[in-house]
């Protein structure tokens, strides 16, 4: 999903979208909604409980704190309520997917959702390289690092990569998956 968005962004801002394809591209919201429904259909609550019931408590606390802080800072920086909300859900819940879902819920415009997605992607790239170093510096165990990356890194793709960079053993761990799935 991330690569599809990045490739589309590059095409739009370099060669542009040919007029022939613009009507089709304009239908993207319909396909987004279909995708969100299918995303929800992938998860069975029982499976999630088996994977990481413990991480649910942690992520609820994490989401509440992060959402409150981002909305407050966004207000202090003079950002619009919808952009702050999209940044909050993108950062505290699950990155691009959450922004796409939240966009429909609050009826945000293209500019706000596009900016929120770009910010989340940029920060995800920063996390990709910084989290393994921090994990090593703090001597986190595989379980601790997996849980931390799953809670803190916005997108599943960026969560999996630092986990793999941090430890070969951690690749087989379930903490990241559990935290991301809950998110």
């Amino acid at each position, binding site marked *: 999903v991330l690569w*599809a*968005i990045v*490739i*589309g*962004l*590059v*095409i*739009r*801002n370099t060669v542009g*979208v040919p007029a022939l394809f613009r009507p089709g*591209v304009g239908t*993207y919201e319909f396909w*987004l909604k279909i995708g969100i429904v299918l995303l929800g259909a992938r998860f069975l609550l029982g499976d999630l409980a088996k994977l990481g019931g*413990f991480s649910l408590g*942690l992520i609820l*606390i*994490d989401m509440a*704190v*992060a959402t409150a*802080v*981002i909305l407050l*800072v*966004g207000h202090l*920086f*003079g*950002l619009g309520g919808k*952009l*702050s909300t999209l*940044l*909050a859900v*993108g*950062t*505290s819940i699950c990155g*691009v997917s959450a922004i*796409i879902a939240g966009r429909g819920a609050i009826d945000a415009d*293209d*500019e706000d*959702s*596009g*900016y*929120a*997605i*770009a*910010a*989340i992607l*940029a*920060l995800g790239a*920063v*996390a990709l390289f910084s*989290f393994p170093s*921090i994990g090593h510096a*703090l001597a*986190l*165990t595989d*379980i*601790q690092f997996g*849980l*931390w990356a799953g*809670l*803190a890194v916005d997108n599943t793709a960026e969560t999996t990569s630092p986990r793999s960079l941090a430890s070969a053993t951690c690749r087989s761990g379930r903490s990241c998956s559990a935290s991301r799935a809950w998110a």
Partner: protein
Amino acid sequence: VGLNFDLRELARAGVRPLIVAALGLVVVAACSLGLVLLTSGWLTG
């Protein structure tokens, strides 16, 4: 989403939203790290 995203509009919005999102990531990272370290005894036990 990507094909509908105009970088020139992003540039017009300035750096403030990026700063807010970056602060959010720092808060999330710090908060979640604290929670993980606080509960590590329970995790390993």
